[in-house]
């Protein structure tokens, strides 16, 4: 009886093995070719060229150049804001009713300066598909400058190209509120009044009280 059961189990397992082997083999081959492709991508970059090894020194030098370029394009106040707080605030074209916080490699966050209410997130990226060093990602300050240039030159166009989400999708609202509080403190220290009441001292023209009232 026992011998019969053992023989049946042996035959059954041999049968299962014979039946399963082709698909198992195909999976193994697929996994092997996938691993080979992954190794090749690591060595040559996804676009087929360039080195992928991360060089912190090179990235630091790139960021230093990017910061110098950003500094040469924005005004002194905006530069100080980015240097001290790590983001830029850009007012909307229609006045001080709304503004954007521009972070490096994060969505642009729209908010109401008067109330601090968060409006939306605009996910936008500037990928360089030529991937000169294996990455399509610009240095942080170049990303901020690209957003700043696109916002100040063609706000509507940039917003239309972006993916809009409700606040909190990618940027933690608590973090944004903290940053708005830091910004208010920074402005108080610097000039004695926050921007929403003093408004448009960023070189955006004279303060228009109607704009503030309408906001």
């Amino acid at each position: 009886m026992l011998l019969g059961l053992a023989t049946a189990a042996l035959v059954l397992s041999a049968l299962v093995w014979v039946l399963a082997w082709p698909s198992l083999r195909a999976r193994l081959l697929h996994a092997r070719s996938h691993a080979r492709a992954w190794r090749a991508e690591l060595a040559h970059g996804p676009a087929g060229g360039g080195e992928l090894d991360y060089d912190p020194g090179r990235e630091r030098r790139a960021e230093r150049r990017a910061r110098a370029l950003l500094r040469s394009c924005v005004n002194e106040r905006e530069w100080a804001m980015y240097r001290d707080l790590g983001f830029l605030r850009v007012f909307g074209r229609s006045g001080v009713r709304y503004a954007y916080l521009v972070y490096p490699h994060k969505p642009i966050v729209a908010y109401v300066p008067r109330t601090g209410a968060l409006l939306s997130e605009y996910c936008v990226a500037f990928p360089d598909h030529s991937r000169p060093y294996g990455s399509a990602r610009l240095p942080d300050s170049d990303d901020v400058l690209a957003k700043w240039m696109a916002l100040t030159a063609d706000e509507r166009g940039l917003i239309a190209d972006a993916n809009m989400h409700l606040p909190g999708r990618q940027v933690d609202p608590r973090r944004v509120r903290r940053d708005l509080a830091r910004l208010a403190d920074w402005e108080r220290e610097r000039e004695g009044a926050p921007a929403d009441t003093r408004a448009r001292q960023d070189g955006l023209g004279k303060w228009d009280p109607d704009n503030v009232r309408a906001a």
Partner: protein
Amino acid sequence: MKLLRMKPGHGEIVLVEGDVEVAEEERALIEAFRRELDAGMWAAVPTRRTDGRREAELVKSFAEVPRDAERVIFFPRAAGGAPGTAL
């Protein structure tokens, strides 16, 4: 006038530099300008207004670049993106 291009892992590079009033140099500037636009770049001219406001102007042809512009900055075209992690 300088034509600059933002580059990952490098910061900006100078593509070409020349005087728009010198025909040969202007030609080189125009050629480089077209090359970058053909490669899918956007071109922006940083400007400073009389009230002190700084902003940029996107240009689609070399003819749109103010003759007295000091530089044109090329950067990759915007794409709706969704970078992964939260802050």
